[in-house]
């Protein structure tokens, strides 16, 4: 073992959280080392998470549009082209994104240390390299950004062949005929709706009565309707007794009520666990929570003041968008730099088909917090742009205070929801009044007009 290499800042993990922490440190003139156990930088976000799932979604949508167009243009696509072309495109996008990340780190003078990090003390880290050799590094400031991986529930024998997780589903070589999805969260809903759109018979099974329970019910109702229209089924309020590969052609899922579901493949999306198993955090003076997370204060600082933790390793909201901001802010705080005002209204984007997005308070939260709420709705089919683009299955729901004056939240379902939400986010940040949406002019025809229509709906209720 060599003598320790000294850094000002050591970041463990090169996902969105670690990258932004490292870049912030480098921009502040610090000598930064970024430890990453995989060859590529970018983390789950680039290789198993956001980028691949969104690319697959986009490709699936394009393919379905294309297939629909075949009716018009009278040609046929070869069936076997489908999944391999989807996956090849995905591989290209992921590679390109990975290269871009690497280049960004080099440009900022950040040293990429390839190996697996393990704390030796609160300032010293052992890096195990692929060839089994070790390097000892130390720093006066350390950021843990080791992210998360799919949870493997005890009673589900994931074999990456028939019973897959959100990582191995990305290397399917053909589209299965049927798929059972365990879970009702973001990852489960996204993949379930993508595969249903591609013609796979999908059944989602979860313990909640509806998927994405944390979202406004108007949104999830619309999601369920679209999912069913593509042939999908949601089985809520169910407990899994047993999951088994029958050894030949089916995965059988036995529910607690005795019902047996059969499918060719299964996707298990029952949450994620933090990557702390190699870190030896007790050596750094840290104790993981009972859920295996690292606990931090509002500045992402752990009980050891010079050790910060950011991203999925500290638990929800477990979004790439928030992880990046946590990384940046943590390093600003550690270095005594002003991080700017704290993000107030974080939007939530779910890239299911249809897309859903939400910012601010829901109707129920507004009632609880403000003693009442007024709600305006605009359906995409009422808007010229919705009709022109064939995007008729959308809804924008605007939540205002009980007087119908102040904007409190926006919830959207339909194509473009994750982009459209930012108008609402800016409105909330600048505390704008509902009438501002009525009094101002929007481009015509656009989906942004839904804001005006929903605001008009509220204004109408206000007038009684």
């Amino acid at each position: 073992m060599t003598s320790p290499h000294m850094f000002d800042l050591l970041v463990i993990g090169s996902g969105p959280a670690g990258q932004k922490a490292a870049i912030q440190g480098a921009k502040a003139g610090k000598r930064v080392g970024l430890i990453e156990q995989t060859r590529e930088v970018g983390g789950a976000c680039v290789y198993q998470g956001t980028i691949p799932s969104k690319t697959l979604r986009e490709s699936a949508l394009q393919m379905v549009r294309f297939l629909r167009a075949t009716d018009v243009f009278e040609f046929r696509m070869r069936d076997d082209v489908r999944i391999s072309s989807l996956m090849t495109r995905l591989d290209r996008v992921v590679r390109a994104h990975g290269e871009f990340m690497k280049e960004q780190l080099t440009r900022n003078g950040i040293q990429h240390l390839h190996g697996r990090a393990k704390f030796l003390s609160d300032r010293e880290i052992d890096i195990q390299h692929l060839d089994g050799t070790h390097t000892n590094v130390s720093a006066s400031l350390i950021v843990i950004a080791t992210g998360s991986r799919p949870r493997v529930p005890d009673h589900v024998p994931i074999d990456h062949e028939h019973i897959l997780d959100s990582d191995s589903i990305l290397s399917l070589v053909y589209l299965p005929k049927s798929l059972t999805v365990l879970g009702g969260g973001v990852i489960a809903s996204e993949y379930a709706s993508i595969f249903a759109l591609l013609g796979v018979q999908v059944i989602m099974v979860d313990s909640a009565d509806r998927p994405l329970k944390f979202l406004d019910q108007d949104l999830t109702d619309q999601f369920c309707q679209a999912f069913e229209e593509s042939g999908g089924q949601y089985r809520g309020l169910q407990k899994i007794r047993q999951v088994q590969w029958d050894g030949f052609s089916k995965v059988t899922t036995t529910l607690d009520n005795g019902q047996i579901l059969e499918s060719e493949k299964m996707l298990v999306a029952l949450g994620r666990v933090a990557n702390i198993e190699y870190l030896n955090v007790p050596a750094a003076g840290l104790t993981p929570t009972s859920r295996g997370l690292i606990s931090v204060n509002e500045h992402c600082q752990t009980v050891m003041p010079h050790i910060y933790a950011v991203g999925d390793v500290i638990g929800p909201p477990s979004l790439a968008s928030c992880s990046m901001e946590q990384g940046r802010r943590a390093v600003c705080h550690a270095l005594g730099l002003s991080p700017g005002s704290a993000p107030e209204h974080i939007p939530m984007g779910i890239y299911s088909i249809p897309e859903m997005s939400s910012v601010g308070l829901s109707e129920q939260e507004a009632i609880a917090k403000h003693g009442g709420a007024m709600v305006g709705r605009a359906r995409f089919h009422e808007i010229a742009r919705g009709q022109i683009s064939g995007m008729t299955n959308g809804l924008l729901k605007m939540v205002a205070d009980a007087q119908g004056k102040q904007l409190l939240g926006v919830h959207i379902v339909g194509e473009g929801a994750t982009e459209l939400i930012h108008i609402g986010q800016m409105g909330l940040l600048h505390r704008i009044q509902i009438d501002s949406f009525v009094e101002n002019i929007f481009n015509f025809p656009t989906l942004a007009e839904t804001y005006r229509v929903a605001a008009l709906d509220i204004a109408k209720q206000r007038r009684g």
Partner: protein
Amino acid sequence: MSPSSCLLEEELAAIRPVLANRLKTTGVDLPLLPVVAHQVLLLSGDPNVDSSKLSALIQQDQALAGQILRIANSPAYAPRSPIVSLQQAIAWLGFNMLAGLAFSVSVQSGVFKTAGYEKEVRGLWRHALATGLYGKEIARRIRHNVENAFLCGLLHLIGKPAILHLTSQTPPLAGRLHSWPVLEKLFDEFHLQAGTALGEVWKLPDSVKEAIRCFPDHLYDQATSPAKGAIITCLADHLASHALGTSDVEEETLRNLQVVRDLNFYPEDMTALLELKESIQHHVECFLS
């Protein structure tokens, strides 16, 4: 140069141009895929397949059906009760494993049954099977879908028996029994080319064709398929040689291969794979004994 290596070189010099020419000109003369193997391959890609179709297919070939039943009853698969029907064997071994086996057994006992080299050809199939089995485990470790890895491993050396077939069929080489060292030299030189040609003639899936073409250490980085069959098969091939004792590569050398790094395997990953040695040997013996 010793007299024996002189002789070897002379023999090689005589065969090489004939074989090279044969490979260049004659995709069509390559052996056809046995009917059963071809149908099994088609069935594996059919989403509407059910076990009765596969068992009906295997039943067409008595020898094949017998082999499958023997394998399913072997200790490696420890059946709870004796397996007496093909349907039962399919349920017990799993469709993909069975389809792969049926394919390999049918190819082995068909076109590639070259008189005079039975023992050596068996050695090739043992290696191919061990590579397929290791391929599955490597894919599992990288949390990659494992289905493709088995078939890639099983077929990556298909070019070798193809060369054997060609040398035994092509005048003026036909009818002569070449020494195994001579054939091994020819394999080294031509098996990728022969395997690639055979993959085309047999219309194997693209990802498998790519693994056959690109699995060697110096070629896997040319592979583009997201299925990663080539790089997985590269390491699986090394591990199979090690497990079956067909290479004298030390465990340490194996751990330090570039492909191990490129798969981002840490020492504990390799330890876990090396620990599978006995189980893989056992499976291979049960399959092919």
